[in-house]
C-alpha cells in the first residue's frame, strides 16, 4: 500500500516541477501531468480495492512524525478511499477530455488542474479543521481560475462571483475555526467530536460557523447564484469537476463534520438540504440553457444527499448506503452529461437532437438521465428506495412527500430534455474525438456495471428474477442486427419465458398465470407486425423488450422491491416505445410524468405498507399498520395512472393515438393491464371481502363508472380514428375498475372477462385501424370511407372486435356484460350500474362511427389504389379472433378455473357451472347456445335484407349528391365528420377537457412558481454576497431564537 500522503507529495511535486517547463517542452510536461493524475488515482484505487477485497483496515497518516492533536493527520478509511477514488477518476477523465485546452494553456492550466484535484483529496482526508480551511481555499481558488479557460466575458464574471463568494464563505469558516479552537481547545476533528461543544451557546455558535460554511460550499438554495453562474458559463469540464469532484468532496466534508452539530445540527442540515432539493428542481423547470439546467440539477442532487446526511439520526446505519448510492449515480451521470455537453458544444436544449446522429451517444445520454431520475436498476433508485422505506419505518411521511415531489420536478425537466434529444432531428454532425468519447463511455460503463453489484447485493439468491433484464441488455447489444432477426429473437425470448412462467404458475397461481398469458402471449402476437419492418429499426426492440420484461417481472415479483423495479422498467420501456411516434414528443412526455407521479405515489405507499412489518414481501399489503387508509389510496392512485382512470387519464389518448401502428396495440391492449394486476394485488391484500365496504373501494367504483361514461362519450366525439380507440380504452378500463370494485365473486369474474376481452379486441382494433392508417396515411376518419372493398379482411377483423366490444351477442363481450349485470344487481349498486349501462349504450355510438366512417360509405378517390392490410397485421388479428371465438363458444373453459381461483378470495359462490351453462340466481347462459341462436337469427335477417333491399341503388362516385364539396373544408361534407354533433351539444360538457385544464393549470403553476423564485438570481455579485450572509444570519436566528 502506498501511503495516502503521497497523493499530496506526488501532486505537489509534479505541480511544482511543471513550472520548469517553458512553452517548448509542453509535450513532456503534459506527460508528467497525466502521470501525476494517474499516480494519485492509482493510490486511491489501491486503497479502495484494499478495503473492499483485502479487508484492509483504515489508517491515519501523521505528518511531522507526531500524533494528533499535536500535528495534522490525514485519514484513509473506506469512505475516504471511495470518495478520493471518485474525485481522482473524475479528475483524470476530465483531464483526458480537456486535452485541447491543456495544449492551449500549457503548464499554467495543468498546475491549476492538478492542484485542484490535490486540494479536493486533502479536504476529504484531513482530520484538522484549519488544514481543511487551507485546502478548501486551494480548491476554491483553483476552481475560480478554471473559469478563465473559456476566456469569455461571461466566464470571467462567473469566476469572479465564485471567487468572492467562496472568499466570504471561507472567512466565515475561519471565524468558526478560531472560535471552535477557543472553546474546544483543539483543531483535531476527533477531539472536537468528543468535546461536545453544543452544550454552551457560544460553543454552539462556533460549531454553527463551521458547519454553515461547509453547507454553503454545497451551494444551498437560495444562497447559490454564484454556483449556478459557474455551471452555466464555464467550460463543460469545469462543470463536471464542480458537480462530480468538488461537490462530492464537499459532501464528504459535511458528512465528516455534521456530528459536531449534534441533533439540532442534523435537523438543520436535513431541512436546508431538503429545501435545496425541491427548490432547485422547481427552478430547473424553466431552464432552457443546458449548462445551467445541469447546474440546478446538480445542486438539487447535492441537496438531497445533504438531507440524507442530516437525517442520520433517523436513518441510522442505512445513511451511508443511501447517501453513497445517490451520490454515485449523481457523480457518474453528471460528469457524463457535462462531458456530453462538451461534445455537442451546444447549450440549447432543442439542439441536443444532434445526438440522434450517433445512436450510441444517444443511448448513453438517456442512460444518464434515467439513472439520475432514480429509475431502477441504477444505484440512486436503490438509495431512494431505502430512504423512503427507512423514513416510512420511522414515521416521517412528510419527508417522503418532500423527496418525491422534488424527484418528480426533476424528472419533468430532464425528461423534456430526453424528448428533445430523441425526437428533434438535426443535420449537424457531432465532432467525434476519441479523447472526448472515452470518458463518457467509461462512466456509462461504470454505471452499468454498478447495476450488477446492486442487484446481486439486494438479491444474492434470486438473480433469476432478472433474467428478463439481462435479455433487455442483450437486445441493446444486438442493435446492429437487421430488424427481422431481432424480431425473431424477441419473440423467441418471450416464448421461452412464457413457457417458463407457465411451468411455474399454471395450476399454482392462476391469477398470475392469467396475467402472464395476457402479457406474454399478447406480447408475442403484437410483435408479429414488426416483421414488416425493413432495416434495423434502431431503438424499437430494446424498448419493446424492456416493456415486456417489466411486465414479466411484475408477474414473478415476490416482494415490493421487485414489483416496483418491474413496474419502473415497464414504464421506461413503454415510454421509449410511445415516443417513437411521429408526433409523440409531448404525449410521451405527459405519459412519463403521470407514470412517474403514479410510481412515486406507489413508492410512498409501499413504504408505508411495509412499515412495522418484518419484511417487504407482497404479503405486507395484507397487514398494513401505518396509515393504512392513506397507503391504500396512494397505491390505488399509483395503479390507476396506468389504468388511466378518470382524472389520471389525460396522457392516454395522445400516447396511444400517436404511437406507431404496431405500438398502439402493445401499449393499449397489454400495458394497461399492468395497472389492473396491481389493483387486484392491492384488493387481495386489503382482504378481498372485508374490503367490500371500504370507502376507498366504493369511491373507486364510482370512479370506474364515471370513467366508463366519460371515456365512451369522449370517444364518440373524436375525428381521429386512433384517438377514438384510445378514449374507448379509458371507458373499457372504467368498466374493469368498476367490476373489481364490487368486490364480489361475480364482479371479479366479470372484470377478468373484460380484461381478457379488452386485451384481445383492442389489439385487433388497433392492429386493424393501424393498418388502415399505414395504407391511407391519415388518422382522420373523414378522410377515409369505403375501405371495405379494399381491405375486406381488415374489415372483418374490426367488425368482429367491435361486436365483442359493444357486448353484442354472440361474442365474448356479451358474456362479460351478462356477468357484469348479474354482479351489479346482486351487489345492489344500482345508481352506478345505471351510469355504466348508459356508458354501454354510448359505446354503440362510437362503435358504429368507426365501422361506418372507415369501411362503409364512399371510397375516397385517393384511396383507389389502397391495398389490403399487411399480412403481418392480419395474422395476429385472426389468431385473436380465433381466440375470441373459442372463448365465446366455450366460456367455461376459461371462466371456471378463474372462478375457482376467485373462490379463494370470495368463498360465497354465486355462480354455478352446469357443463357449458352458467347459472346464477338471476338466470342462466350458455355461450354455445347463444352463439348458435344468434347465427340462425343473423342468417335469417341477412336473407330478409337481401330479399327486401333489391331496390337499393348504388351511388356512383360522381353522383351529383357528392359534387358539392366545399373545397376549403372538404371534411365538412363527409358523413362521419362531427358525426354526433347533436349529442355533443347535449352532453358534450361531460367529455369536455376540464380535467386536462386542471392539470395544465397545475403544470403552469409550478412553472410560474419556479420562474418567480429564480428571479432572486439577479446576476449581481453583490446580491449573491448578501444572500450568503443573510442565509447564515437567518438560519442562525431561527436556530437560536426560533423566529
Amino acid at each position, binding site marked *: 500500500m502506498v501511503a495516502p500522503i503521497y497523493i499530496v507529495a506526488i501532486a505537489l511535486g509534479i505541480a511544482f516541477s511543471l513550472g520548469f517547463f517553458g512553452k517548448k517542452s509542453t509535450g513532456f510536461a503534459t506527460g508528467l501531468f497525466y502521470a501525476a493524475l494517474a499516480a494519485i488515482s492509482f493510490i486511491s484505487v489501491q486503497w479502495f480495492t484494499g478495503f473492499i477485497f483485502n479487508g484492509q483496515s483504515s489508517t491515519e497518516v501523521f505528518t511531522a512524525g507526531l500524533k494528533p492533536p499535536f500535528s495534522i493527520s490525514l485519514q484513509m478509511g473506506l469512505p475516504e478511499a471511495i470518495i478520493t477514488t471518485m474525485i481522482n477518476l473524475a479528475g483524470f477523465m476530465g483531464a483526458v477530455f480537456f486535452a485541447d485546452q491543456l495544449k492551449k494553456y500549457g503548464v499554467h492550466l495543468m498546475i491549476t488542474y492538478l492542484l485542484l484535484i490535490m486540494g479536493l483529496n486533502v479536504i476529504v482526508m484531513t482530520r484538522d479543521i484549519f488544514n481543511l480551511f487551507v485546502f478548501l481555499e486551494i480548491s476554491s481558488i483553483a476552481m475560480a481560475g478554471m473559469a478563465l479557460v473559456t476566456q469569455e466575458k461571461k466566464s470571467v464574471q462567473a469566476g469572479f462571483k465564485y471567487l468572492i463568494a467562496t472568499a466570504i464563505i471561507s*472567512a466565515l469558516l475561519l471565524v468558526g475555526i478560531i472560535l471552535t*479552537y477557543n472553546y474546544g481547545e483543539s483543531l483535531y476533528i476527533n477531539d472536537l467530536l468528543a468535546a461536545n461543544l453544543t452544550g454552551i451557546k457560544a460553543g454552539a455558535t462556533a460549531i454553527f460557523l463551521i458547519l454553515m460554511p461547509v453547507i454553503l460550499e454545497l451551494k444551498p438554495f437560495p444562497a447559490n447564484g454564484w454556483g449556478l453562474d459557474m455551471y452555466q458559463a464555464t467550460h463543460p469540464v469545469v462543470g463536471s469537476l464542480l458537480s462530480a469532484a468538488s461537490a462530492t468532496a464537499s459532501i464528504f466534508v459535511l458528512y465528516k463534520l455534521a456530528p459536531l452539530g449534534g441533533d439540532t445540527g442534523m435537523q438543520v442540515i436535513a431541512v436546508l438540504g431538503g429545501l435545496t432539493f425541491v427548490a432547485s428542481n422547481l427552478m430547473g423547470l424553466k431552464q432552457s440553457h443546458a449548462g445551467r439546467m445541469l447546474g440546478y440539477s446538480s445542486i438539487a442532487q447535492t441537496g438531497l444527499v445533504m438531507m440524507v446526511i442530516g437525517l442520520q439520526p433517523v436513518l441510522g446505519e442505512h445513511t451511508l448506503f443511501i447517501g453513497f448510492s445517490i451520490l454515485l449515480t449523481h457523480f457518474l451521470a453528471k460528469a457524463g452529461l457535462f462531458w456530453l455537453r462538451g461534445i455537442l458544444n451546444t447549450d440549447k436544449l432543442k439542439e441536443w437532437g444532434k445526438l440522434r446522429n450517433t445512436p450510441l451517444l444517444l443511448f448513453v445520454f438517456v442512460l444518464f438521465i434515467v439513472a439520475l431520475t432514480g429509475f431502477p436498476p441504477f444505484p440512486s433508485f436503490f438509495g431512494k428506495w431505502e430512504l423512503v422505506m427507512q423514513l416510512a419505518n420511522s414515521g416521517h411521511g412528510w419527508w417522503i412527500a418532500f423527496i418525491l415531489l422534488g424527484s418528480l420536478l426533476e424528472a419533468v425537466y430532464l425528461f423534456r430534455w430526453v424528448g428533445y434529444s430523441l425526437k428533434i432531428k438535426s443535420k449537424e454532425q457531432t465532432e467525434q474525438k476519441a479523447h472526448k468519447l472515452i470518458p463518457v463511455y467509461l462512466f456509462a460503463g461504470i454505471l452499468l456495471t454498478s447495476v450488477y453489484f446492486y442487484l446481486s447485493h439486494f438479491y444474492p439468491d434470486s438473480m433469476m428474477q432478472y433474467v428478463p433484464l439481462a435479455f433487455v441488455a442483450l437486445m441493446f447489444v444486438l442493435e446492429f442486427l437487421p430488424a427481422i432477426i431481432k424480431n425473431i429473437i424477441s419473440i423467441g425470448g418471450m416464448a421461452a419465458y412464457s413457457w417458463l412462467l407457465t411451468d411455474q404458475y399454471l395450476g399454482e397461481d392462476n391469477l398470475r398465470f392469467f396475467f402472464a398469458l395476457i402479457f406474454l402471449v399478447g406480447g408475442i402476437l403484437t410483435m408479429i407486425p414488426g416483421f414488416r419492418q425493413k432495416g434495423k429499426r434502431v431503438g424499437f426492440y430494446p424498448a419493446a423488450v424492456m416493456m415486456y420484461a417489466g411486465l414479466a417481472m411484475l408477474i414473478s415479483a415476490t416482494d415490493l422491491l421487485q414489483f416496483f423495479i418491474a413496474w419502473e422498467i415497464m414504464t421506461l420501456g413503454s415510454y421509449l416505445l410511445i415516443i417513437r411516434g411521429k408526433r409523440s414528443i409531448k404525449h410521451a412526455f405527459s405519459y412519463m410524468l403521470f407514470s412517474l407521479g403514479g410510481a412515486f405515489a406507489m413508492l410512498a405507499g409501499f413504504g408505508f405498507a411495509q412499515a412495522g412489518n418484518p419484511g417487504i414481501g407482497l404479503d405486507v399489503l395484507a397487514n398494513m399498520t401505518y396509515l393504512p387508509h392513506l397507503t391504500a389510496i396512494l397505491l390505488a392512485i399509483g395503479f390507476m395512472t396506468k389504468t388511466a382512470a378518470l382524472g389520471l387519464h389525460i396522457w392516454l389518448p395522445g400516447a396511444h393515438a400517436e404511437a406507431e401502428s404496431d405500438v398502439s396495440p402493445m401499449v393499449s391492449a397489454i400495458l394497461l393491464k399492468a395497472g389492473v394486476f396491481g389493483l387486484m394485488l392491492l384488493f387481495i391484500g386489503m382482504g378481498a371481502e372485508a374490503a367490500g365496504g371500504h370507502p376507498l373501494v366504493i369511491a373507486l367504483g364510482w370512479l370506474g363508472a364515471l370513467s366508463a361514461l366519460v371515456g365512451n362519450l369522449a370517444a364518440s366525439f373524436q375525428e381521429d380514428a386512433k384517438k377514438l380507440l384510445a378514449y374507448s380504452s379509458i371507458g373499457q378500463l372504467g368498466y374493469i375498475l368498476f367490476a373489481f370494485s364490487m368486490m364480489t365473486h361475480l364482479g371479479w369474474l366479470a372484470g377478468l372477462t373484460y380484461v381478457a376481452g379488452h386485451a384481445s379486441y383492442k389489439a385487433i382494433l388497433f392492429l386493424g385501424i393501424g393498418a388502415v392508417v399505414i395504407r391511407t396515411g391519415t388518422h382522420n376518419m373523414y378522410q377515409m370511407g369505403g375501405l371495405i372493398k379494399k381491405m375486406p379482411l381488415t374489415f372483418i377483423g374490426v367488425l368482429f372486435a367491435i361486436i365483442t366490444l359493444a357486448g353484442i351477442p354472440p361474442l365474448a363481450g356479451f358474456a362479460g356484460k351478462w356477468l357484469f349485470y348479474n354482479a351489479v344487481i346482486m351487489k345492489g349498486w344500482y345508481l352506478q350500474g345505471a351510469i355504466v349501462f348508459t356508458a354501454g349504450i354510448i359505446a354503440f355510438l362510437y362503435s358504429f362511427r368507426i365501422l361506418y366512417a372507415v369501411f362503409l360509405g364512399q371510397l375516397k378517390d385517393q384511396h383507389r389504389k389502397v391495398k389490403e392490410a399487411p399480412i403481418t397485421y392480419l395474422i395476429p388479428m385472426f389468431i385473436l379472433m380465433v381466440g375470441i371465438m373459442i372463448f365465446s363458444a366455450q366460456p367455461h373453459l376459461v371462466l371456471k378455473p378463474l372462478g375457482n381461483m376467485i373462490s379463494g378470495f370470495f368463498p360465497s359462490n354465486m355462480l354455478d357451472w352446469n357443463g357449458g351453462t352458467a347459472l346464477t340466481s338471476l338466470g342462466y347462459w350458455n355461450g354455445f347456445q347463444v352463439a348458435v341462436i344468434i347465427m340462425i337469427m343473423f342468417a335469417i335477417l341477412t336473407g330478409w335484407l337481401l330479399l327486401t333491399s333489391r331496390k337499393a341503388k348504388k351511388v356512383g362516385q360522381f353522383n351529383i349528391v357528392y359534387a358539392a364539396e366545399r373545397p376549403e373544408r372538404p371534411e365538412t361534407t363527409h358523413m362521419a365528420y362531427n358525426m354526433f354533433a347533436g349529442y355533443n351539444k347535449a352532453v358534450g360538457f361531460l367529455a369536455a377537457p376540464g380535467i386536462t385544464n386542471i392539470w395544465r393549470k397545475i403544470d403552469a403553476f409550478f412553472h410560474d412558481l419556479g420562474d418567480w423564485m429564480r428571479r432572486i438570481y439577479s446576476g449581481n455579485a453583490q446580491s449573491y454576497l448578501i444572500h450568503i450572509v443573510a442565509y447564515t444570519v437567518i438560519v442562525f436566528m431561527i436556530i437560536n431564537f426560533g423566529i
Partner: protein
Amino acid sequence: MITLEYITLGTGILLMLMGIWGLFTQKNLIKIVIGFTLVDTGIHILMVSIGHIKNRTAPIIDDAVNASEAADKVVDPIPQAMVLTAIVIGLGITALMLTFVVKMAKDNNSLNVSNFKSLKW
C-alpha cells in the same frame, strides 16, 4: 473589567462588520475587494486576540523566557501560526480578485458591480 483582549476582540469584530458593510453597499469592484481585505484583517485581529494570554510574552524562547517555564510565560503560538497562514492566503485571494477585476473592467469598460449581470436566472 476591561482587558486588552476585549478591546482587540471588539475591534476585530467591528472591523469585520465594517468590511461586510463595504461588501454590501459599495458598487465599485475595487471597493468590494477592499471590503474583503478589511474583513480578513478583522478576522486576523480576532484570531490573535483569542490566542493572547494576559501579561505573557511572545512565544519565543530566549534569554527572557526559559525553556522549562515557557508554558507559563508565553502566549498561545497556534493562533499566531494560523494567522500567518491566513494572511498569505488572503494576499493570494486579493491578488486573484484584482486580476479578475482588471479583466472585467477592460471587458466592459466599467467598475460598477451592477453592470455585470449577463448571467442570471
